[in-house]
């Protein structure tokens, strides 16, 4: 009898347990997963994505667990940029990471009617490229990492390492904002330093190849602007330059490390990728891209000693001491 009476309260206790369980489950909550679409046109800049992923991992976004990247490799064919960007939009990604200015512009066009945020890295002049209103207040759905126009300083470094330089060969795509802007600064610096720039416009890969095959004899060095088109043939260019015993200056450290460009003074792609990751994180945390100031990437001096040796160039210890990256 008494046992029976106790059993009567069993449902009450069970009910309490269930309620407690439900509350705990509600508190635990499910972790949101994100999808990031990546659009890039320069294979060498994939290291930016590597940096981005590292940054995201540090911030707690583990690929395969709570974040997925949609990236089918660099879209070398510029004509396909828009469709790739639209594809990402169609895939309803949470954020688009655009690498390079044309890629960002394609993303901008594709997301014009959506609220998918876009984080670019790097874009030389996001204001000039019409991506943001200002660096402090981007205003739209786009923010990212830019870098100061350091081409003057890069030229100084080149001249400092190879003081004999008088004429520099510069193939570039006049249809890309970045090299055009860089060239302006560079021209000013060249004047100060007393060097002459031999520019060669290229608009497609064929023209790039032509430019590589036709390096002028008077050129004392080859200067690569932040030009995604030219960057795609960086290896060929370096090969050609090495043959001609010409020093080369690249627009980023990756070309020094990967393609044997002699020096670069440019933003680090890994670090800028991490910067972009921080921005993406903030966007995921609810801050609108419009309120996220465009960050500026840091510059690093990179020197490839192998290449230096290959072209018979001796680089002083004084300079090497200042280098951030040395490829030995």
């Amino acid at each position, binding site marked *: 009898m008494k046992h029976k009476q106790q059993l009567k309260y069993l449902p009450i206790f069970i009910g309490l347990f269930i309620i407690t369980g439900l509350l705990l489950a509600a508190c635990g909550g499910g972790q949101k997963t994100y999808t990031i679409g990546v659009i890039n046109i320069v294979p060498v800049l994939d290291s930016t994505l590597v940096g981005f992923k590292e940054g995201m991992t540090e911030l707690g976004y583990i690929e395969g667990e709570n974040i997925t990247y949609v990236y089918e490799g660099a879209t070398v064919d510029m004509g396909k940029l828009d469709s790739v960007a639209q594809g990402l939009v169609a895939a309803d990604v949470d954020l688009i990471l655009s690498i390079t200015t044309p890629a960002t512009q394609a993303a901008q066009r594709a997301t014009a009617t959506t609220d998918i945020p876009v984080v670019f890295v790097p874009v030389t002049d996001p204001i000039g490229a019409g991506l943001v209103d200002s660096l402090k207040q981007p205003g739209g759905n786009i923010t990212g990492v830019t870098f100061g126009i350091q081409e003057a300083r890069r030229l100084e470094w080149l001249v400092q390492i190879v003081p004999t330089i008088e004429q520099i060969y510069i193939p570039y795509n006049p249809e890309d904002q970045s090299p055009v802007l860089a060239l302006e600064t560079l021209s000013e610096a060249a004047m100060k330093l007393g060097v002459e720039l031999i520019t060669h416009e290229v608009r497609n890969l064929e023209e790039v190849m032509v430019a590589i095959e036709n390096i002028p004899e008077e050129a004392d060095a080859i200067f690569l602007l932040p030009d995604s088109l030219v960057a795609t043939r960086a290896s060929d260019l370096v090969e050609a330059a090495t043959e001609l015993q010409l020093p080369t200056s690249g627009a980023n450290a990756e070309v020094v490390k990967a393609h044997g460009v002699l020096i670069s003074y440019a933003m680090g792609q890994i670090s800028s990728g991490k910067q972009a990751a921080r921005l993406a994180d903030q966007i995921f945390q609810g801050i609108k891209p419009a309120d*996220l100031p465009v960050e500026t990437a840091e510059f690093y001096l990179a020197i490839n000693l192998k290449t230096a040796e290959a072209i018979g160039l001796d680089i002083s210890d004084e300079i090497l001491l200042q280098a951030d990256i040395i490829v030995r």
Partner: protein
Amino acid sequence: MRNSIRTRLTVAFIGLAIVPLLLVGAILALQSFTAEEQQALNLQREVTRRVATEVTAFFEELENELRLVSQMQMLPGLDQNEQHSILLLLMSQDVFEGLVLLDSQGQKQIHLSRLGHSSTDRGHYPEADEFVIPQTSGQVYYSPVWFEETSGEPLMTIAVPLLDVRTGLVDDILVSEVRLKKIWGLIADVQVSSGQSVYIVDSQDKVVAHRNPSVVLRDTSFAVPDQDGIQPGLTGSSVVLAVDTTRFGEQEFSIIAEQTVPEALAPAINSMYVIAAVIVVALVVASSLGFLIVRQIIRPIQTMATTAQIISTGDLSQQVEVTSRDELGILANTFNSMTTQLRTLIDSLEQRVARRTRQIETVVEVSQQLTGILDLQTLLREVVTMTKETFGYYHVHIYVLAEENKTLIMAEGYGQAGEKMKQQGHQIPLDTPASLVARAARRREIVLVNNVRQATDWLPNPLLPDTYSEMAIPIITEKKVIGVLDVQSDQVAGLDEEDKDLLRSLANHVAVAMTNAQLYQTEQELRGQEAERAQELAKLNVELQAAQAELLRQERLATLGQLTATVSHEIRNPLATIRASAFTLDRKTRDKELGVERALDRIERNITRCDNIITELLDYTRMGELKLQLILFDDWLQQVLDEQTLPEGVTLSRQLKAGVEMRLDPERFRRVIINLFDNAYQAMQETLQSDSQKQTLTMQTKVIGERLKVSITDTGPGIPPDVLPRIFEPLYSTKGFGVGLGLPVVQGIVKQHGGKIEINSEVGKGTQVLIWLSLD
């Protein structure tokens, strides 16, 4: 019910258990919260102190570097190319946005910029603070923080005066534009907890360094609070915030570490949750326990209350279910026991009432039955029987007070003991002191002794060995004791007040019944006497009538005798003359054939007949004294029969087997036989005329017992039933002749001999005459 025990208990329970629980919980939570808050604040302080140290170190290092590079290298004394090289080395630090070497006049000697292109000239140096202050004071100058236009990054100008070692005067001034972005790295390297952030605010309240560069780039301002604690943080939300300051020249930096309250106080909040959870669980458990306990307490009480209400309506069969062994269980048990007792009491009362009613009914019934009995003895017997058997006493007997000698006579008692006592004529004198019965009669009140063995005035009765208690009830009518009803029980205290009432009532009825019976008896006795007298009177009357009749008959017979004697004498004389004349005629006419013979025969025959009538008459009237002789009856009868002449066709059968001597008057009795013989002969002669069959007259004698039976049986036509009763009447005759005195004479003679005559006859078969004579 607002004032129900349940409500009060619940309130008490909440007051005693839950309120302290809540209070303790609140105090614990508050203490925990305060401790955690302090700890969180300490944590922020520690961070700010660490960052402050690092920032200070950063600036000191920078300053030292600038001094070292310039002074150790004797920068002012070198040529411009050498100066340029040294400054380039410095630039490789990447911490400087630009380096400007000014001469003592404030003229720019060398200008290096991080990105190569000519940096912004920030003014006319000879008048700018970065020149004037170091130049005049010889002290390092720290400018307010300013922001680079394009990148929006914070910069700070640090101007170091380069002194001539020999003169001690300011030679050159090295103006450096320091990128505070490098401090971001310092802050970024600080290990922070979740929700924590560290930033540096300059004198203009601008955030110059933050873990998140966006904050700085966004041109964020923050008014540094005066004291640490919980307050609105950088984002406006409530944070635990600590501030440390560090000064560089005129510039003061506030290093702020903050952590959002939910994160900072997470342990506190967690412990509060834990406490809250514990309290909630405790509350639930306490409430459940309380509920159960209250329920356990209340339920039996409610049940008891309900049961009590039901009981109050009269249903005493209700019992409270006993579910516990505590005080409530005891209470319930007691309650049940009380109810049971009450029920038993009521039941016993009801039983007593019922019994009493039944007894009263029985008394009434008994009384009614008794009232119907009018015979006193029967009444008394019934009283003891009914009292004993109806009420189941051990013994009952009844005494009747005899008025004369003042003695109580045991009139009736139950069973063998009663019978014996009655036979022994058990009685108690009224003044016997050692007698309950006598005392009851004397005092006219019921005497009850619960244990007779202990009573001094008790008379033990060997016939009633098991008597233990006894009650004597006086039977009183009209204030007079008429008897005592004595009831005994074989148990100590086997008789009580109820019996007393019962028996008193019964005794009253018995008194009435006894009175009635006595009255009836008296009346009956009177009636009996009356009837007896009437009977005697009637008998006398009959006797008188008989005597009168006899007298009349005697007179008549005497008259008849006288008349007969006179007539007989007067007629017999002429008859004798006639007979003599007739004889003479016969003798003279005999043989002369005159034809008168038949007439003469007729005369002779009628003379004989007349003579016979006269004889009969004389016989009937002359019933004088018998002349008794002792004769042998059969022989005497043989002789008489031999004398008789049997008519033709009739056979006489003699069966004379008496063989006794009789005292009788032979002459008279001869007349009996002859008369009967004649009657039979005449009857058979009638038969002979119509039937030629032979007739038999049977004569029998036989001794049966003390009597002699004489029977004369003929085979004549029999006597019709209407005639039979009258045959002994005198002068009644069916024959054409005779005077009808034959059979009355026979009857008279037989009677004179103390005998009896009977006639049995059946028409068509014959007649039997029986004479019974006593052998005495």
